[in-house]
């Protein structure tokens, strides 16, 4: 009531108006969401300024998981640094390994064998599927749907089985390494992987029926947290968060590395199917469609792997000497563009390593988007941006 009066009389003070018309004074409340909170996906802390259920402002605070990854990078050789990259985006370790390896290879001019490139594509894409599965499941969890989360993890377990059979690890792989991959794929890998893809592909339709097109889910996510294309580019968003705004931009197409130009795949973008373009649902659905495309790429790569014998690793990958030069290299990771800046000084140990985590840049838009929404929309928006705090804080 006070608000309507104020609209007609902007010269009045809010409290005076409330006193005059007998409305009750309300107070704003600061609420601390995190660092320990179920829906902040790790140790993100957001300070919310709220008025009842309305969130007026959200200020993210990060750094709770800062592990000096860049400082460590200045103290170890690149080959030793690979395990640290695993721990940045711990849901897509393969992509992190790949980004750092490609950056070092670009700096030193190391040749990667053909077979290794195909294996890299397979594992990067499989890890993209695994990462998007977690993202999708956790997003359902944020919306209060428990079951898709378990389904997503059931499927992800199979991918992790394949990874474990190949490199012995289920989360921190260090499999893709400088000059290739640490080991060749195990026997029967191609068959089992194909079997898995045959099993997995129909499941995507199942997720769509269960979650994506669920009426409640759509009501919760469509028209929430809208990011326009201009805004997304201005804030440096990348990956599914950028493509959800309708920007058909993918580094796998723009600067194909690892031979991505030899594969046939589409770039799914948000189309505003359920609401306005660039809302949470669009960002979520881009991930679902990307899983489908990754399946396509892996299928082609498996065919190619069968016909590509040879080395899986360059011999001198372990002991590269970095020239007195610098490089900034970005790849399309699961969450967006993962970049490494490396400055060499002629020795084996980099002078400076800087990681540009996609989650870090994507999260920085929070302040801009989480505004004048309901409390329940905060997890919806944060979840749709899909951050991994290990990468944000490094």
């Amino acid at each position: 009531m006070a608000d309507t009066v104020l609209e007609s009389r902007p010269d009045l003070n809010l409290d005076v108006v409330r006193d005059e018309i007998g409305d009750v004074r309300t107070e704003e409340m600061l609420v601390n969401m995190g660092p320990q909170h179920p829906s902040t996906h790790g140790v993100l802390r957001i300070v919310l300024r709220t008025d009842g259920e309305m969130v007026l402002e959200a200020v993210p605070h990060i750094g709770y998981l800062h592990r000096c990854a860049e400082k460590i990078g200045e103290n170890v050789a690149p080959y030793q640094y690979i395990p640290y990259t695993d721990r940045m985006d711990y849901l897509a370790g393969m992509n992190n390994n790949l980004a750092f390896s490609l950056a070092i290879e670009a700096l030193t001019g190391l040749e990667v064998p053909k077979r290794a490139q195909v294996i890299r594509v397979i594992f990067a894409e499989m890890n993209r599927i695994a990462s998007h599965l977690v993202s999708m499941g956790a997003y359902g969890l944020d919306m209060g749907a428990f079951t898709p989360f378990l389904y997503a993890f059931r499927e992800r377990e199979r991918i992790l089985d394949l990874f474990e059979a190949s490199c012995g690890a289920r989360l921190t792989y260090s499999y893709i390494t400088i000059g290739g991959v640490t080991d060749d794929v195990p026997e029967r890998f191609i068959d089992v992987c194909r079997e898995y893809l045959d099993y997995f592909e129909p499941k995507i339709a199942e997720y769509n029926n269960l979650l994506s097109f669920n009426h409640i889910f759509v009501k919760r996510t469509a028209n929430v947290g809208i990011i326009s294309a201009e805004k997304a580019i201005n804030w440096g968003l990348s990956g599914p968060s950028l493509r959800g705004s309708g920007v058909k931009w993918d580094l796998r197409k723009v600067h194909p590395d690892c031979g991505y130009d030899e594969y046939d795949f589409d770039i799914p973008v948000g189309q505003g199917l359920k609401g306005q373009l660039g809302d949470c649902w669009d960002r979520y659905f881009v991930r679902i469609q990307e899983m489908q495309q990754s399946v396509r790429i892996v299928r082609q790569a498996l065919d190619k792997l069968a016909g590509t014998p040879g080395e899986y690793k360059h011999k001198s990958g372990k002991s590269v000497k970095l020239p007195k030069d610098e490089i900034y290299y970005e790849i399309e990771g699961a969450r967006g563009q993962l970049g490494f800046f490396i400055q060499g000084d002629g020795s084996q140990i980099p002078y400076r390593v800087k990681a540009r985590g996609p989650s870090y840049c994507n999260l920085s838009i929070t302040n801009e988007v989480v505004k004048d929404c309901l409390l329940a929309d905060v997890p919806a928006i944060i979840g749709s941006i899909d951050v991994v705090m290990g990468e944000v804080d490094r």
Partner: protein
Amino acid sequence: MTIEGIANLLKEKFPDAGIEARLESRHPHVIVKPEHWLTVAEFLRNDPQLKFDWLRCITGVDYIEDKQLAAIYDFHSTQRPAQSDGLWSARGELSVKVLAPRDNPMVPSVCHLWGAADWHERETYDLVGINFQNHPDSVDDLNGRHPRRILCPDDWQGHPLQKDYEFPLEYHGIPAVTEFGQTRPLHG
């Protein structure tokens, strides 16, 4: 436009900005003096030919031997789709290195041009110590006016990625000495 062309264009537009181009590097870049950086940045952002609308990353590097701190900006210029497949493409890529003296590392903030600069500048201040002036999220304290820290706690002293950084022996009662009595990494 190639990076060579951009460098020539910039030299032409800003003859006294001390613009140098390092094209032989694997990371070809343009060097700009900090006092001219703001005008150059506005030009890069708004010039209809260049339109570098996407700030990918800001990296801070401590070149201790040159007594300089560098803020390295990497840009993309996105091109709306012309082809039928609707794929966006890169009109151009650019890296700019702003070299600031180590004893007074002041660089103008570009947050009003690229929203993405906000957190990157805060991080660069936090870890490398380049002070971005007029940053929208600035605080005043004993170290003067500077962007708010982002990864380290607000009361942290020093900038961990500077090459002469001494790790504190203790922080609020938390000891930071290893069992070997060593406070710096072996290779450092």
